[in-house]
């Protein structure tokens, strides 16, 4: 092989001349009209060319932030809105602050936190449906000093520090997660029948929030996260990138581990390429087969409009086809 191959060849010239001889201008003009008319009939194009990869990756970052924020806020709302009515007969549960202040006054809030909520904005966004204030207290109501006749449950005392610290979204999320882990056993315990003191009932109640019955004023819980967001929220983008890298390198053990962690199998890079596409391009049938078993799409397309199926067809490798379950 030499550089001579890259230079123009008389055969190339002969072919170009042959095409020119056979070319019909009238046909070309008619074709031009048809194509341009068809293009004009098509729906408007996507936004102009200005650096799409950057925009896409920026959206992905924003998407993560939004998903995490929504998840955090949904947990926050869940712990507030779905909270059952206070049960006075229950002994004061775990929180040390409550036990210290239990006897004389049902609600004890630390002084700085009790004052702060009056100035701080409420963290709950208006777009998410919240039960009427009359039915259940909001976060702001709970953090304010409540009158003695209607003492808020102990769990309501935890967020009083939230507005005073900072109204930043990420902190809201972090606080919400912290409160969820703290609150779950308490709420579950309070769900137990007042007369049931057995250790088994408490243990089973501590396990999860799932059995909690919805209050009557909530017809159905709002869909706080779509399935797609839920799946992507579980794994950071670098894990998806690791999945693609592992697919490109044929590291099936790493692939299996990442997939077992719940990394989305069809997560794509800036070019719209998935792990399955990477494995096909790098000719790793075992990796491709593993990804297919985990539901990787053959028909999802990259930015160039090519699907994994297209790539496999183009590659034409029998072993790869077999791994992908393609019948040719």
């Amino acid at each position: 092989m030499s550089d001579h191959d890259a230079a123009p060849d008389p055969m190339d010239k002969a072919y170009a001349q042959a095409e020119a001889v056979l070319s019909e201008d009238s046909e070309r003009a008619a074709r031009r009209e048809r194509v341009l008319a068809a293009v004009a009939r098509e729906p408007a194009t996507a936004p102009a060319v200005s650096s799409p990869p950057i925009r896409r990756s920026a959206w992905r970052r924003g998407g993560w932030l939004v998903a995490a924020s929504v998840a955090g806020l949904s947990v926050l709302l869940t712990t507030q809105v779905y909270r059952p009515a206070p049960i006075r007969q229950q002994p004061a549960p775990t929180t040390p602050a409550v036990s210290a202040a239990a006897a004389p006054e049902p609600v004890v809030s630390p002084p700085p936190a009790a004052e702060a909520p009056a100035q701080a904005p409420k963290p709950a966004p208006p777009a998410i449906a919240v039960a009427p204030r009359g039915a259940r207290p909001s976060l702001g109501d709970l953090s304010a000093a409540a009158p003695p006749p209607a003492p808020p449950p102990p769990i309501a005392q935890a967020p009083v520090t939230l507005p005073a610290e900072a109204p930043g979204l990420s902190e809201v999320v972090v606080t919400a997660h912290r409160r969820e882990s703290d609150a779950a056993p308490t709420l579950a315990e309070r769900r137990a029948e007042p007369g049931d003191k057995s250790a088994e009932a408490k243990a089973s109640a501590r396990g999860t929030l799932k059995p909690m019955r919805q209050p009557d004023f909530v017809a159905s819980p709002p869909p706080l996260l779509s399935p797609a967001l839920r799946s992507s929220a579980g794994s950071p983008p670098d894990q998806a990138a690791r999945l693609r890298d592992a697919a490109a390198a044929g590291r099936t053990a790493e692939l299996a581990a990442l997939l077992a962690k719940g990394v989305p199998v069809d997560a794509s890079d800036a070019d719209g390429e998935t792990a399955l596409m990477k494995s096909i391009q790098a000719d790793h049938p075992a990796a491709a087969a593993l990804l297919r078993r985990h539901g990787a799409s053959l028909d999802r397309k990259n930015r160039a409009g090519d699907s994994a199926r297209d790539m496999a067809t183009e590659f034409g490798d029998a072993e790869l086809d077999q791994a992908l379950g393609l019948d040719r």
Partner: protein
Amino acid sequence: MEPDAADDADLLRAHGAGDPHAFARLYDRYDRQCFQLIRRLLGVAHSDAAEDLHQETWIAISKNAAAFDPGKSSFPAWLFTIARHKTWDHFRRQKVAVLSSAQDDAGMMVPDPGQSPLEQVQSRELAQEIIAAVEALPLEQRGVFVMFAQAGLSLEEIAQVTGVAVETAKSRLRYARAKLRQSLAGERPAHV
């Protein structure tokens, strides 16, 4: 092709912004090469589909204008990538078995008869013979040859379009030329 790359991107951008003439200008630059690539890849048996695939290719270009990244490939390379995939899609729909690379390579073992150039294509009949010889090439060789000889893509661009190494594209081009020489020399020894 190389110097026009930025202009092509400008035209695509203008098309995306609603300029009604930008796309026509872009089309006029490449329609001939695009159509001929599709036409030759299809061969005689599927030539009827060439017009449709050509149209589908340009519609895809229009719809995906925002996805074109001039930093990653030239416009013609992008265009021919799409055109080639449209052709492959057609073959798949028609259940046509596309020769794999391995089969292609086996078919490439043709001795090079040496330089026997066609200096000029003087007649329509000879032109048709050349085209027929090109269409008789294995599919991968045919694509590389047409993109290099007619569309003017570099070997690097062809490698990008076809998803193979540059060396592979180069060897396909070499074998295509050798086969054409052999084929045309066998048919028209007096002229070649």
